């Protein structure tokens, strides 16, 4: 809000669209992190329409060595994936993720918002604190809203950084999401309630959360 003060020259016309496109281009080029339309407009002169400028800019970079990509509700410029082979030097050795971490990440991405108990139910084993911590630290997941069920457990969702890392416009673009959904594999299907022989007795307290939503 305070930023608005610098651009209260509302008496002046917004710059021509070609100029706005240049501005968006400069800002996106300059930053490594995706930038939202709102942030763009906050930095551009008053009255600019960053969303429209982005449409033109995206088109301009189609098929080029760098592309304008959408990440969640933000935008960024990234090198074209087919040119990755040129960048060996730039490649940062990413920490190898354990199978548990990869699976946990996938479960959070496809089932979000998801509680820890639900992750454990799907994987059939308990999720170690370290796995969640690692994903949090990589900023691929974050806490979502608490589930409004007894115990108000926290949920996990994936982040913009996750989308950015995997080149996804939104979580809806996750590979195979539609098929999983139509196969009913994303439903949280309660296990038939057994009398005595609970299948995972150790966390029966948590399990109830699964079924309340």
């Amino acid at each position, binding site marked *: 809000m305070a930023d608005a003060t610098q651009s209260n020259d509302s008496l002046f016309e917004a710059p021509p669209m070609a100029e706005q496109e240049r501005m968006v281009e400069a800002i996106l080029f*300059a930053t*490594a992190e995706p930038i939202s339309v709102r942030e763009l407009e906050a930095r551009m002169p008053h009255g600019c329409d960053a969303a429209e400028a982005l449409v033109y800019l995206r088109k301009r970079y189609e098929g080029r060595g760098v592309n304008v990509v959408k990440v969640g509700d933000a935008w960024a410029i*990234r090198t074209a994936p087919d040119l990755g082979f040129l960048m060996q030097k730039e490649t940062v050795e990413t920490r190898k993720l354990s199978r548990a971490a990869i699976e946990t990440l996938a479960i959070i991405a496809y089932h979000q918002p998801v509680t820890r108990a639900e992750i454990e139910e799907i994987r*059939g084993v308990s999720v170690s604190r370290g796995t969640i911590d690692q994903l949090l630290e990589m900023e691929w997941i974050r806490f979502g809203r608490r589930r409004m069920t007894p115990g108000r457990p926290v949920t996990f969702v994936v982040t913009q950084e996750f989308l950015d890392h995997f080149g996804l416009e939104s979580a809806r673009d996750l590979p195979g999401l539609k098929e999983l959904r139509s196969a009913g594999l994303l439903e949280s299907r309660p296990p038939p309630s*057994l009398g005595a022989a609970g299948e995972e007795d150790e966390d029966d307290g948590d399990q109830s959360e699964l079924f309340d939503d």
Partner: protein
Amino acid sequence: MAEDTTEQTVAERLAAEALIVDVEGFEGPLDLLLMLSRTQKVDLRKISILHLANQYLAFVERAKKLRLELAADYLVMAAWLAFLKSRLLLPPDPSEEGPSGEELAAHLAFQLERLQAMRDVAARLMARDQKGRDFFVRGIPEDVARIKRVTYTANLLDLMQAYARIRTKDEFRPFVMDRDSVFTMEQALERMRGLIGFAGTWTDIVSYLPPGWENDPAKRRSATAATFAASLELVKEGKAEIRQSGTFEPIHLRKREGRDG
């Protein structure tokens, strides 16, 4: 029941043995069940849960023979699968509570299918182009310089007060030491008790102020307040009467005469 193990093909037994060697590599019973289910070489949705239960129980048996320490959850799963097996094999008992063997089996099949699906998509996810590996961010990012301009303000009153504060600093003393210009209620009361006896008529309480306290505004204020408080105290004790004809009018005090009844 005993035939279960003998029913197994040689290949299956070998597979089971391989699994036992690798038991540490499994992430719990569900993971192992998923692995076992692959030997059936069918769509997970058409899997025979009964057959799978047998495979698992055989695995646990072999582990026991080899005196392999199996984690508790493997044994819990074995117990549960044995229970499931009995439900699947025996004709349904109408008096029995809870879900049928088929329902339980269907849920286990669902769990396996879901876990397998998650693994598949996890693999697809990791196979995507990744930032820092296949595509890259700006190598020389320009940070937005946050120019913070601080402007300081002060008005004339601030300035004058500041000056006044400095110039009168010497006149300040710590509050508790300021006794010489404070007339306490106790002092006033003591003084009033002596004087009230002579006040037969209404007298302005200002005239009770101690000598030497009338001129200095600070002293005067303190003495007035103390005297007023002391007057109230005397009224409360029934030794005096007090009156004021209106707001901000002088306050008058007189000695209380003997009570009329």
